[in-house]
């Protein structure tokens, strides 16, 4: 009985030592959040949230609900993994939920355009016009001319 107990206690202390080493290592490698700096880029999901803040409020004030079209620089069939259009669409959908964004916009009167590299000029898809420009490549499009 004494043997089992001493062996077990000693062995448990070895387990404790290994677990403690893991805790110490975890404490060393888990960095604090970055200090505030213009060079700090927030995580992509938070960034997308901020980009779409104004559009989100605007859509609410317009009373738009349900589904809208989604327009990106390429049509859905040409999205590639390398260009991350799918990921960007998912994050946009999250930012604007519970609105549903359909990457096939043809069936809708309103569409959200997410064109971060559009610069000063934007080539709207045929049949769509810009209802409002929210900056940083975020536009609300309306079918037809205004």
């Amino acid at each position, binding site marked *: 009985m004494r043997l089992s107990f001493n062996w077990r206690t000693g062995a448990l202390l070895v387990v404790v030592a290994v*677990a403690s080493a893991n805790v110490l290592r975890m404490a060393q490698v888990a960095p604090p959040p*970055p200090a505030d700096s213009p*060079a700090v880029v927030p995580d992509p999901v938070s960034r997308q949230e901020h980009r779409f803040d104004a559009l989100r409020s605007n859509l609410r004030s317009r009373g738009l609900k349900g589904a809208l079209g989604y327009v990106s620089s390429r049509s859905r069939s040409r999205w590639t993994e390398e260009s991350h259009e799918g990921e960007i669409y998912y994050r946009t959908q999250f930012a604007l939920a519970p609105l549903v964004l359909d990457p096939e916009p043809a069936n809708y009167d309103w569409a959200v355009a997410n064109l971060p590299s559009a610069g000063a000029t934007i080539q709207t898809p045929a049949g769509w016009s810009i209802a409002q420009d929210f900056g940083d490549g975020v536009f609300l499009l309306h079918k037809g001319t205004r």
Partner: protein
Amino acid sequence: MILSVVIALGFAWLLGTLAASACWSRQRPAPADLLLLVPLGLGLGLGLTSIFFFAASLIANEPRGLAAGMDGLAIAGLSWCLWRKPPAAAAKPRPPARTGLLVTALVGSILGQAAVVAVVVSARAYEAEPLGSWDGWAIWNMHARFLFHAGPHWADALRQPTLNWTHPDYPLLVPASVARAWAWVGRDAPLASGLVSGAFGAATAGLLMAATARLRPALVAFTGGLVLLGTPFFVTFASNEHADIPLGFFILATLTLLALSQRGGHPAGALALAGLTAGLAAWTKNEGLLFAMVVSFALVARELVRGSPRLAGAFLGGLLAGLLPVIYFKVMLAPPGDLVSGGITARLGQLLDASRHRLILASLWRDAMRFGEWCFAPFLVMLLPLAGPGWRRFVGREWSAAAAVALTAAGYYTVYLLTPLDLKWHVDNSMVRLLIQLWPATIFLWCLALSAEESSASSGRTLRRPGVVLAGFVLLNLAGTGVLLSLFARQLAPNEMARARTGGREFSAVLGEGWFAREGRGSDLWVWSRGESRLLLRADGSPAAGPFTVAFGLRSLDARQVTAKIGDRIVWSGVAGPMLSQVRIPGLQLSSGDMTLVFTTDRPGVPESGATGARALTFALYHPRIE
């Protein structure tokens, strides 16, 4: 906002603790029972209130009021039930376990410090990704947004085919808990989702230790807790807003209740609770449905064979209560899931495909060794206490608990064999999460498998004044916590190069634009510039500060001129070369609380290697200091 979240979590916790207490015993719970019932109640309460919120969201435009009413009614009803129960009989005082007290107090102290580290690390993981990592936002928080914002028709919106990528068939315990917390706050605040997520992590650790401590010596319970908190993936994932930690909690809760049901005076109550937690596992994730099935099979078969249909009935009754929202959701609201689409019968041939077995087993070997993100995987040392006479056989329902874990793992394996998704992609993207779901339960089974003799590691001597020893350890722990927190506070942020306290002010040097990521080895710290780069110098407190000196080492791969400016004023200029040279810029004065040192160089960067995509390096700052 924090107060609203705390109130929301507090009501859930109270409800869960009352529900657990009402089932636990025929009397009111004794104070000692609360150590177990409180962590159990936290997860249980979040599960039950998520069901109320889900039900309210189907009826009401603003489900908060209705859900809060249901919470209140349940709390009142359960309180009345408990009030009617006779008070707990005075527990027979256990002789103070003086033997082994020193070792137990030592390990308990280490555990206490590990808990402090875990809280800080978990909070930092939350700060890095406040909306959770991929599944956190793309599935669980996304569904919570529909529940919270879309009114009673949220399910219609979420069912649209264009949203199939967000898995609208997944159960709703986590989204409904998060949406409930948001409803209390009044907006979809990320902190609320982070706290709900972290609460499940804390409840898991607390329940593991509390349940183990009822069945094994405190030393074993503390060691089990330490193994869990020494699993970095568990700690960082706990606040990451996924559903795997909550599922792990419900799996653990079910198994601990099975094991404890043969110790208490009211096994039917404990088994009813176990059934409820198994049902809540199914309400958490689709994997939980598999767990609910296999644990029901393992337990009900055993009880029927042993002629205890009443106990099997108690378990199934609890299970049904937990499964009701799942059944309603799956039958009435959810589209079919991707794993069952296309029919399973066509894929049965995959069961015999040797290449699939090889791929799954190879991935299992790879991920089992590293899923915890340990610096030292603990498996081998965990075998040590089981060697020789330290091992004991499971008894009674402990076998059902062990069988449930084994069958769940076998079920996961079979799902991989039959998956219609690309197998490698599926395994690579999910196996570590499946392993972390089962990890708390596995640690619990490991603790159960250890022999139960009380420790007498203090060489058989009894301590004369155990109270004094414990008080000493408490003081030591408080001091240790203070030291730990101050060490955490002194850690540099990833974009920080130096911090110093001088003249009663805290100064820091922060990387602005134009640098590659900071590098380090041991105590060495350096950063390479891309060309023109900025170093922000800051002082806390009042705006004006100084004078102070910035000192650093400077190196380049070739000989080049480097200039440092503040605005248009050149504050230093010199030649950098392959040998490290020391630079001092004295007499700096902060007039507005911060200033920017702009570094420029006269030549473009030099590729660091011949590889494509190699960085073009100009010059590097080593060990910046503020004096």
